[in-house]
């Protein structure tokens, strides 16, 4: 195959820069693979490695510092047949560390070439995550305080199935890159070279010295057998093809007459685990079965299994413009946590308002009429109280009826869950009330 180098735009690196060599090595690897320019995208990072895409007649994507792996992953997922090659320096690797780890873990078929020259060449030779502690760079003494990392070791630990380290001067580097590009998965090649303009001014680095330094480190020559596994994008497609779910949101048909003529506000004040949001959803569905407009707004702690659980419902034959509750007609007070959260709400309640109060729950002074219910005595468990309260509302036909509630239960639950819910309704029906 022909060279994919862009004859209109020859490399513009400093004299003696190892990147010149990397450009030619990559071209030879692409030739060995017999790839056309349109089979390949070069995603380049920032810095001198960020110039690579301009030297090739391939697809090209040049983005932000350290983020090249993210663009590459998006491209590969969208165009699974494309060969995706990322060129990045040691600087980009450091700033994009999280993406490097994620790429190793995720194993999308991308080849990452780290053009490792131990410093930020373009910005003045500052230290990077691979600069040796003993090197003299433009960051004064700072690099002496930080330990450089072995990116091959990190890649292997994080799950990359192909990891190799090589001097840019190695004769068979094109062959190694060919293997890396052919590997179906995330392949990392750590290519060591020198930056004559910055790093090598104070830290001489001959090809022999590079070779000697690499030999002192653990060897990475390609396939990491422990990490060989399925490639992510093909795996994703296979898994997604099995996902036969239908769109989860289905309409609720009107089968009952509406029971309310004007806006009604109902608030459940409970605690985590009392299923107040589920009960609110049932009440909502029951009302929608009668063609009413409903809104439901929930409030609970980030730690969802502890603390207050509040649900606010609005029922209206007209459109609901304002979704906040101002003067609730009904408060269902089931637990101290929820009551504490909405203490001020009781004050706002008008005389015609109704409060269903679980025995033992303290509430502030209020104008509303209190209906105290001893759920416990009625054999109703903590997690059943909210549903039982729905029944008490339905029995008074405000804002729903018992028939509407039963239909909502039938549409929401199946099997054992439905039986249990019906059991709660029966227990609620036989409860004795003290006004």
């Amino acid at each position: 195959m022909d060279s994919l180098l862009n004859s209109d735009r020859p490399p513009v690196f400093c004299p003696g820069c190892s990147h010149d060599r990397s450009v030619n090595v990559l071209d030879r690897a692409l030739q060995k693979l017999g790839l056309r320019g349109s089979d390949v995208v070069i995603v380049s990072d920032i810095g001198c490695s960020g110039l690579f895409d301009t030297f090739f007649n391939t697809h090209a994507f040049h983005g932000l510092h350290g983020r090249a792996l993210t663009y590459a992953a998006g491209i590969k997922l969208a165009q699974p047949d494309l060969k995706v090659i990322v060129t990045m320096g040691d600087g980009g690797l450091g700033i994009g560390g999280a993406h490097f780890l994620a790429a190793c873990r995720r194993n999308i078929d991308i080849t990452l070439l780290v053009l490792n020259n131990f410093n930020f060449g373009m910005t003045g030779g500052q230290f990077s995550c691979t600069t040796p502690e003993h090197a003299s760079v433009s960051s004064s003494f700072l690099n002496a305080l930080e330990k450089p990392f072995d990116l091959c070791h990190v890649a292997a630990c994080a799950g990359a199935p192909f990891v190799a380290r090589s001097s840019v001067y190695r004769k068979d580097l094109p062959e190694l890159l060919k293997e890396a590009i052919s590997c179906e998965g995330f392949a990392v090649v750590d290519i060591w070279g020198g930056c004559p303009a910055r790093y090598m001014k104070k830290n001489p680095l001959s090809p022999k010295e590079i070779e000697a330094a690499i030999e002192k480190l653990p060897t990475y020559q390609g396939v990491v057998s422990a990490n060989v596994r399925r490639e992510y994008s093909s795996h994703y497609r296979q898994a997604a093809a099995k996902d036969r779910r239908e769109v989860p949101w289905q309409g609720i048909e009107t089968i009952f007459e509406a029971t309310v003529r004007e806006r009604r506000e109902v608030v459940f004040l409970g605690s985590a685990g009392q299923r107040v949001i589920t009960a609110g959803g049932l009440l909502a569905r029951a009302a929608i079965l009668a063609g009413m407009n409903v809104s439901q707004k929930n409030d609970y702690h980030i730690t969802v299994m502890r603390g207050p659980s509040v649900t606010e419902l609005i029922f209206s034959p007209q459109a609901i413009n304002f979704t906040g509750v101002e003067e609730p007609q009904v408060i269902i007070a089931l637990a101290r946590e929820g009551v504490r959260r909405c203490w001020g709400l009781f004050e706002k309640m008008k005389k015609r308002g109704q409060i269903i109060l679980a025995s033992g729950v303290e509430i502030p002074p209020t104008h509303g009429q209190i209906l105290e219910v001893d759920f416990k005595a009625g054999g109703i468990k903590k997690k059943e109280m909210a549903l039982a309260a729905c029944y008490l509302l339905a029995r008074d036909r405000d804002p729903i009826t018992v028939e509407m509630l039963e239909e909502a239960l039938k549409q929401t639950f199946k099997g054992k869950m439905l039986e249990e819910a019906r059991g709660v309704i029966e227990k609620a029906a036989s409860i004795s009330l003290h006004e």
Partner: protein
Amino acid sequence: MGLLFIDGNQAVAMGALYGGCRFFASYPITPASTLLSAMLETLPAAGGIVLQGEDEIASIGYCLGASMAGMKVMTATSGPGLSLYSENISFAIAGEIPIVIVNIMRQGPSTGSATRGADSDVQFMRWGCSGGLPVIVLAPANVSDCFTLTVHAFNLAEQFRCPVFIASNKEIGMTSQTVDMERVEKPLIIDRTLHESGPFLPFQVNPGEDVPAFLPIGGPILVRQTSSTHGPDGYITTDPSEIQAGVERLQRKIEANIESFSYFDLEERKGARTLIVAYGITAGAARAAAAELFEKQNVPVSLLVLKTLWPVPEQVLLGAAGGMEQILVVEMNLGQYVQEVRRVLCNQKVDFYGKMSGQLISPREIIKEVLGG
């Protein structure tokens, strides 16, 4: 099909599917994480891709890659995550990469309150990235708007090759409402214009046009994308006149077309001397307030609900405010969009009412402001 009972985030997911979204990536953040769930429940089964990124920077990065490879893409976050999107948003502007960014706003500053709504980011979405070039921001006022405006957002992103924001709010995104889908507006779908014939330069525009034709990375014709200042060929340019022409075009392609996507509702009442201007979740309270003022207190007040926030639909504002003695801007923050209204209506008295306590602004508060003003 009956009434749907869905929240704003689910409606955005439905709108995205309808609008042709094929790729969604985001990092979980309250109150946007239920949108990630909704996309996972629907998009893979519809043949699309959902990715949970390792962070917000990655999530938008995945989208930009997939968009350039030809897919319609969307990401979702809230204030803290939007901060991390910033650099990639300016890339999407510079590289003319279509993307829909859903911002479910919550109480700031900083980490703020994850489960409390606020219109925290109204200026941030416009000005929160380098370069100062315009973006499109659409603000749904309720659940059904979430559907319609998301479809519009995809269309505009495709049409103008730019980032388009959906500026939602926890109070819309996580509050369920009944929606009659048969009555919800469903815009026609627009796809990006593809390059058809002749030599292809990735950022070349045809004479008289401002948006370059698109080809995907990965097709038979080579495509270049770059975040660097570039000429029509997608290579770095240092030519000052080419640079200036490039940024002016990026500005013009959005701002010159504002009238084609100025979405708003105007409730005009005869004899009104006050105009309320609202957007987002507060629009509902303002609607209720205006209705009550008229029906119960015989005070006619007009209401302008803006659904396009950026670029500022100046003609809409000027038209609605003409002849009004008082303009009252109501928003769930300490006064952000009111600055734009004051700029546009510089000869009129523009008052402001807002709060940022995690609580909704109520119709009662708005009525008090109108009568007291």
